[in-house]
């Protein structure tokens, strides 16, 4: 157990091991996304209410899910960094951030294009849409922390400060959701609602599952890929970098 923990403290070990993992997750992402999206967009049956419009669900649902889960992941990685001081966790958190922010954007955009034919408008001040919009700004704030704070407090302190921001943000996400729902019930006429859908047939939800798994794999793949680059950038002048990547002329 402790040995396993200890390994995560070693940047070199992570850099070497993650090459293979990222490849595995990359192939899985390709497989499941192709399966889910092709099945969903081409072969799944049309919906009796929404016809073909519902197919955007195969992008919208996974991206909306991953948008929230990625923020939670960043907060958990931050907590691990603060408590156990494992060096690689802030780099993983920083690496997965653009994926999470992109998921929020994708969820908002796909939601808009789904909303247009369904509700007749690209944007409504619905509780879910609104809280997703604020989630986007939480991501942007965190991103700004990672890129600006190293200048004022040094990189290691900046990573810890950003971890605290992520934890504060993740405590706030449910409160923001709850408050927006409260506000929503106060102000919205009940007619515009995301409809409670009846149970979907397997031919509709199986591609959705495939697509969700594909998004998870894509997250891990992109996180590892980017973490490897960030790690090299952070540790450019360390001895292990010259050893592992002799072609990189580091620092000096």
């Amino acid at each position, binding site marked *: 157990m402790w040995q396993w923990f200890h390994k995560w403290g070693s940047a070199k070990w992570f850099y070497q091991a993650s090459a293979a993992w990222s490849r595995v997750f990359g192939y899985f992402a390709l497989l499941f996304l192709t399966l889910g999206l092709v099945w969903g967009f081409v072969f799944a049956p049309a919906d009796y209410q929404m016809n073909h419009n519902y197919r955007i669900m195969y992008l919208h649902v996974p991206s909306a899910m991953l948008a929230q889960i990625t923020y939670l992941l960043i907060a958990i990685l931050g907590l691990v960094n603060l408590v156990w001081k494992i060096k690689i966790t802030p780099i993983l958190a920083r690496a997965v951030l653009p994926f999470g922010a992109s998921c929020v954007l994708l969820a908002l955009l796909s939601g808009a294009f789904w909303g247009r034919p369904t509700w007749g408008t690209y944007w409504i001040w619905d509780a879910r849409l609104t809280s997703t919009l604020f989630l986007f700004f939480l991501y942007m704030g965190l991103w700004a922390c990672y890129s600006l704070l190293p200048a004022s407090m*040094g*990189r290691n302190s900046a990573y810890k400060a950003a971890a605290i921001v992520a934890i504060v943000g993740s405590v706030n996400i449910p409160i923001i959701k709850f408050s927006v729902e409260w506000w929503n019930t106060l102000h919205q006429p009940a007619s515009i609602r995301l409809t409670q859908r009846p149970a979907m047939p397997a031919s509709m939800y199986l591609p959705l599952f495939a697509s969700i798994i594909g998004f998870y794999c894509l997250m891990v793949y992109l996180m590892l890929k980017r973490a490897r680059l960030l790690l090299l950038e952070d*540790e450019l*002048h*360390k001895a292990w970098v010259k050893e592992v990547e002799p072609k990189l002329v580091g620092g000096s």
Partner: protein
Amino acid sequence: MILQAVNLALRFDDWQLWRGLSFTIAQAELVHLRAANGRGKTSLLRGLMGLNHWLEGDVRWAVDMQAEEDFAAKVLFVGHKTPLASELSVLENLQLLQGLRGQVSSQQQLAATLQDIGLQGFADMPAKWLSAGQSRRLVLSQCDLPSLRFWCFDEPFVALDKMYVEWLVAKIQAFQLSGGAVLFTSHQEIPGLAARELYLD
């Protein structure tokens, strides 16, 4: 013994400044810390004061100085900065500086302190109108607090004129005689201070 530093290493982010530094400061000892610019003298002093983290190593304080309130009462740190609130008066700032160490002085004592540092008659003036030398004297005046056992001064002679350099030297010598220890940095050579020299490299 006042403090014992064991195998200290310091870094700023990824830049390691030095490692394997060990030294001891005994009672009634005067230590002059010397190093070239940018070698981390200030960082070492701040680290000893608990304001920086060490990469490695440990600082062991005398047993009766380890508790938080003991440390505040017995250790005086005067750095480059002058921790004065510019809108508060000289007297209020003096009271606050002493209050931070849990000390309350009578009006007579405060007046005597101001007299000692040549600020008599300025008690009600806002601290923002003090000159650099006057501010420094006000901060250094804390060294008279009777509970202190260790002074840690970063360039204490900067901005002081000749008269107050001698004043501070006399204070240091008197403190040493009473069993106190002083660790300081200084670019100037100060006549009359027989200090052990500690080199950083």
